[in-house]
């Protein structure tokens, strides 16, 4: 750098300025790596006791994800991983997770735990990671089953769907128009629940008078969900209730309802975080909603990853492993591990939960 800088022409000076800055920026980043990245350097071997785990959520900086990852970190420590990392994109687009998977593959991470934004887009990258020796655990949102060893599911998809239907039916008195405000149109888990809801609505005579008039997508974006909720109420004046099987969607919809004339007139239920929903339960906008404990999801996924990495299970149906304080878990049909039943929150019990 010095010799270049001593040059006298303008363009050299400009170059020097750029090069210096680039180097500075990088050394800053490198500095960060030196302190925390040490584990990664030796973590690649994959041999006994030196195993590493990395969580790749749908996107960083999402409150629900943070709770899940909190459980994951705990689980990873308890399960005995030497290092556990969280990396991920800032936007939940289909392709944005791929280069993170690539980087982890190259680092030789033993277990990759992923909540897929798109079941197929991450496929080829996960294949490569497996070829390189990594074990893949999907959690929260499944990938195409071909690309992972296990899927740690919140709960039985059908149970989640049914409980939400029960709640809404109760709240609207068993008849009237309802709508669904979901996350992204491609979200694997939401789509599965919606499918079960539709089937149940058609089959169960108890729900014969309930009509599902619309499905809209708020893309797990606060503003968009808010406006979708608003549009629903305008387009369907007779709407009696809304199911929002996503934490962002239900909170945004609750916010809209609580600030509009529809408050108390249109029922709302779905899956929400107690901390986010507390004011809306208290002010009467929402009477009951459901969710499982997200922390358990991460916790179990970490133990599943450990069992896979140790070779104690392979992901076959019937395999079972110890998941710390949550006890033994068994791999079910389709390589799915269930975490636990959903909890229903209402004004009475909501203050007992803090997540």
């Amino acid at each position, binding site marked *: 750098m010095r010799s270049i800088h001593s040059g006298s022409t303008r363009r050299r000076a400009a170059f020097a300025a750029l090069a210096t800055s680039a180097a500075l920026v990088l050394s800053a980043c490198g500095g960060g790596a030196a302190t925390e990245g040490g584990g990664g350097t030796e973590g690649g071997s994959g041999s006994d006791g030196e195993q590493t785990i990395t969580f790749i959520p749908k996107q960083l900086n999402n409150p629900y994800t943070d709770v899940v990852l909190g459980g994951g970190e705990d689980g990873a420590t308890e399960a005995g991983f030497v290092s556990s990392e969280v990396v991920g994109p800032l936007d939940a687009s289909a392709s944005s997770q791929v280069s993170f998977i690539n980087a982890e593959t190259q680092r030789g991470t033993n277990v990759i735990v992923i909540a897929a934004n798109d079941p197929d887009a991450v496929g080829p990258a996960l294949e490569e990671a497996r070829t390189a020796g990594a074990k893949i655990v999907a959690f929260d949102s499944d990938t195409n089953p071909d690309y992972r060893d296990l899927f740690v599911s919140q709960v039985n998809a059908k149970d989640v769907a049914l409980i939400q239907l029960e709640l809404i039916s109760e709240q609207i008195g068993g008849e009237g128009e309802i709508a669904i405000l979901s996350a992204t149109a491609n979200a694997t888990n939401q789509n599965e629940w919606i499918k079960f809801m539709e089937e149940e609505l058609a089959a169960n005579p108890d729900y014969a008078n309930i009509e599902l008039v619309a499905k809209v997508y708020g893309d797990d974006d606060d503003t968009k969900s*808010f406006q979708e909720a608003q549009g629903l109420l305008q387009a369907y004046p007779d709407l009696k209730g809304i199911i929002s099987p996503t934490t962002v969607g239900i909170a945004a919809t609750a916010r809209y309802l609580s600030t509009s004339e529809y408050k108390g007139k249109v029922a709302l239920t779905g899956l929400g975080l107690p901390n*986010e929903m507390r004011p809306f339960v208290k002010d009467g906008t929402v009477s009951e909603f459901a969710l499982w404990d997200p922390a358990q999801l991460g916790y179990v996924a970490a133990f599943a990853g450990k069992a896979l990495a140790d070779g104690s299970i392979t992901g076959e149906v019937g395999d079972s492993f110890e998941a710390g304080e949550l006890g033994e878990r068994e791999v079910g049909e389709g390589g799915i591990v269930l975490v636990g039943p959903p909890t229903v929150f209402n004004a009475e019990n909501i203050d007992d939960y803090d997540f």
Partner: protein
Amino acid sequence: MSLDRTVGAAPAHPTPGHSRPSALASFLRLRELPVILALVILVAVTAALNPLFLSEQGIKDLLLNATILMILAVGQTLVIITRNIDLSVGSILGLVAFGTGSIFVAAPNLPIIAVFVLGMLFGAVLGALNGLLITIAKVPALVITLGTLYIFRGINNAWAGGTQYFAGDRPEAFGNLSVDTILGFPVITLIAVVVVAIVAVYMLGTRPGRDLYAIGSDPDAARLFGIPVTRRVLLAFVVNGLLAGLAGVLYASRFNSVGATTGSGLELDVVAAAVVGGVAIFGGSGTVVGATIGALLLTTITSALTALRVDKFWQQAIVGILILAAVVIDRIASVRSARKLRIAEARNV
């Protein structure tokens, strides 16, 4: 020669003195006319098909939806009129919105008005940063604000991390600003209207306001003329930041959560609103009122399509067509006036 807007382009002799245009004629010449018409037609058609569209709640929602974009479009208009652009407004809004959430958590008893002032100051500082980089380093605004778009967003992410503040974290009175109405108008919309009015009067009726038009019309001439170009452009950016800050505070009032990604991707909507509202993308002409109506039109379309149960997938395409239409209409108008001029001059020679 299609883009030739040189003043001296016409090989012309003096044009005959036109008589004072009538009020009607000058109304018909308004740059904002097409967008006003489009808005009126849209609302009329939608209301005819779905009366709920113009119910009390419907109007309230329409106005609330447009409020934030309106304020941003006003600020953006100031900047565009000086032949600049600010792509970082979405990021500024996000930072201020999250800042607002943080303030309420840190100091729950702070008067709401103080939070507004702080938020706007914060925005103004960020705007000033843009303005200073552009005017002092003399670098194109497009590049600088593309850079600060990333940087501000990065800072927002670093600051917020996974933290989000929810409506429940803020005083009810603050949230009620976007619930309560006065004469059917939501409070925050009234705030926006006051802002639009103040800025509109400033742009139309004060010397610094007119200077902004002169600068956008021809920056070099403006400098040669003794207009303090640097100071005025800086002012435009500061005001834009201030308004983005205001929008950020209002965002926190209206929506449920503020966090790391609040307001991302808004910048193109804002520029689109200004363009649809008849603000020339290369400065010198256009009004804040036009931009405001542009913002109202864009948000109304979204609501209207939903209310009409039109396939929501068409929404974005229609917004695109609108923008193109605005640009084409503007072009046709200027071609027509140029032709009229040429004919007048040909006769006059």
